[in-house]
């Protein structure tokens, strides 16, 4: 019986294939499943096994000839009286496809491989040094099979094993499996978007993480009665604006109160350098400013030298320069204490992260009217007061709870007894 060998279909949209090489010539015998020819499609070259055993009687396609899928490229005369398929009229194309789909049965190639394997076993004689490493690292047979021997006869050398162990230690599989098991964002799906952080964001991320890894953060909070200052500001804000050209805010009051407390508690105005404490002579306050690009902390230098109006002007100009992106690199360095006023966003209280290498930071909440108990000589009464919750974050490596508490209490007193006469 004569069997047609046809160009196999290698993929759904593939309609043709190129004959690259015949492994057999006319007149030669071919076993079933033995590689008969090689074809090229797309960028894939494939070895095609013979769908039947027999003698090759005709080769139609020459190397580099292109044939449509299903076209006859050779003919084999079956030696068996019993063809594989009982249905002789079955489409030839189907036969070849079935053959490709079937797992290869025993054939020459299998024997060849088993030979190869036994060779490999012979090579698996390991020197005592290699054996020691194998034992020490609990390498499995599978592991050993995947090591490429570079020694004589492909024998695995000590260097090969050590190289493998090193690779195994930072095993890609472990890392990737871990990542795969983590909940992942569907990248580019409708629900989420993947965007790389910009330079500033990356810096902030590193800076924040670094601070939490460095300082022993603790927090104390207190309520500060800002009623006097609130009244003062509403009374004076128009005159101030007319005179200075910008708004009178609460920030310079807070700065002035903090500068006074920092002068009384120099340890809050210091830095830790390994086992040493650096106490700073000047009070340089970092002011957290929200910008379009993220958080910036420009520094108001030598605050202790400024009077109230000087502080107002400096706060205003630095905030403006920050938002206008006109800061110089120096403006962001050398802070000795920081203040984050998230109260401007109407937040009641928060716990800011210390701005390294500082040891303290104020988190200023929004000034909100509260009903509070007022103690008088005539007894207690309830009144409406403008209350500002202030939080002090400090580094417990250097500052104990008592010092932190005394510091924030001093600040409260400064604010509640703020000297409001002749400020400007």
């Amino acid at each position: 019986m004569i069997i047609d060998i046809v160009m196999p279909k290698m993929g759904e949209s593939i309609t043709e294939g190129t004959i690259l090489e015949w492994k057999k010539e006319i007149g030669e015998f071919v076993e079933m499943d033995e590689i008969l020819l090689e074809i090229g499609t797309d960028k894939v070259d494939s070895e095609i096994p013979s769908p039947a055993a027999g003698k090759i009687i005709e080769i139609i396609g020459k190397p580099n000839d292109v044939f449509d899928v299903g076209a006859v490229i050779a003919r084999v005369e079956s030696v068996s009286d019993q063809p594989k398929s009982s249905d002789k009229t079955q489409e030839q194309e189907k036969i070849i496809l079935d053959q490709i789909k079937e797992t290869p049965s025993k054939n020459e190639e299998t024997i060849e491989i088993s030979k190869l394997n036994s060779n490999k076993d012979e090579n698996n004689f390991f020197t005592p040094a290699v054996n020691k490493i194998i034992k020490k690292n609990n390498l499995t047979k599978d592991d050993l099979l995947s090591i490429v021997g570079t020694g004589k006869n492909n024998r695995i050398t000590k260097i090969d094993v050590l190289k493998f162990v090193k690779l195994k230690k930072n095993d890609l599989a472990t890392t990737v499996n871990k990542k795969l098991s983590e909940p992942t964002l569907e990248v580019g799906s409708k629900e989420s978007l993947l965007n790389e952080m910009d330079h500033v964001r990356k810096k902030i991320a590193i800076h924040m993480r670094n601070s939490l890894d460095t300082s022993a953060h603790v927090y104390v909070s207190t309520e500060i009665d800002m009623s006097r200052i609130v009244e003062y500001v509403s009374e004076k804000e128009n005159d101030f604006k007319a005179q200075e050209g910008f708004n009178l805010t609460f920030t310079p009051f807070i700065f002035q109160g903090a500068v006074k407390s920092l002068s009384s508690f120099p340890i809050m105005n210091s830095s830790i350098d390994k086992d040493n404490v650096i106490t700073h002579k000047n009070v340089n306050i970092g002011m957290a400013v929200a910008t379009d690009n993220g958080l910036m902390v420009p520094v108001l230098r030598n605050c202790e030298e400024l009077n109230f109006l000087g502080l107002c002007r400096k706060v205003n100009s630095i905030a403006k320069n920050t938002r206008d992106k006109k800061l110089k690199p120096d403006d962001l360095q050398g802070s000795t204490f920081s203040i984050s006023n998230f109260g401007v966003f109407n937040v009641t209280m928060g716990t800011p992260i210390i701005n390294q290498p500082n040891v303290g930071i104020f988190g200023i909440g929004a000034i909100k009217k509260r009903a509070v108990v007022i103690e008088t000589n005539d007894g207690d009464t309830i009144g409406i007061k403008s209350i500002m919750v202030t939080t002090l974050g400090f580094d417990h490596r250097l500052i104990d709870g008592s010092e932190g508490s005394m510091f924030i209490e001093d600040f409260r007193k400064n604010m509640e007894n703020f000297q409001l006469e002749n400020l400007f």
Partner: protein
Amino acid sequence: MNRIKIIDLGFLDYKNSWNYQKELQKKVLIGDCSDSIIFVEHDSVYTFGKNSDKSNLMISKDSKIKIYETERGGEITYHGPGQIVCYPILNLKNFKQSVTWYMRALEEVIIETLKLLNIKATRKDGLTGVWVKDEKIGAQGVRMTKWVTMHGFALNVNTDLRFFNDIIPCGIKDFGVTSIEKIIGKEQDLSLVKEHILISFAKVFNIKGYI
């Protein structure tokens, strides 16, 4: 889906890793080894596919770079330091018995990998491979024996692209080549890119994990 074995050969010359893949392909073919992915970085080498046009290599005869004629599909290409070469040895019967599907899937792996690095890469109609704008970043060439694959793809990470000046990669004259380093402007950590490849591979081939 079966788990896939990762074999990272590190830095290994072309000849040795070629032999290694051939042996592994045989093992996978008889079911002696699970489907695997080989990662390797080669010395500088030019390789031809079986039906490559030799005129696409324009280097002088005294060039020290080795040239290999391989049995994979595709035209000439360059391999060298800084390039991740990935040889999946897969029995496509475990996935899908289609050459077209496999080649598009490999492209998808490269595209997804680059997406994880914020690089937008695409296919070009009729041209196998992965492109960033008009420059090729990932090249593919595959050989199959009874649906078991060998060879695979190469992704230019920190590749010295000057080596491509002497060839017409994949026989495509009109377009240049590029690398992740060239696009991002910074040398990349190869092991991180390999992780990205494996994550993308798992996604595209629907693999649950690796061994």
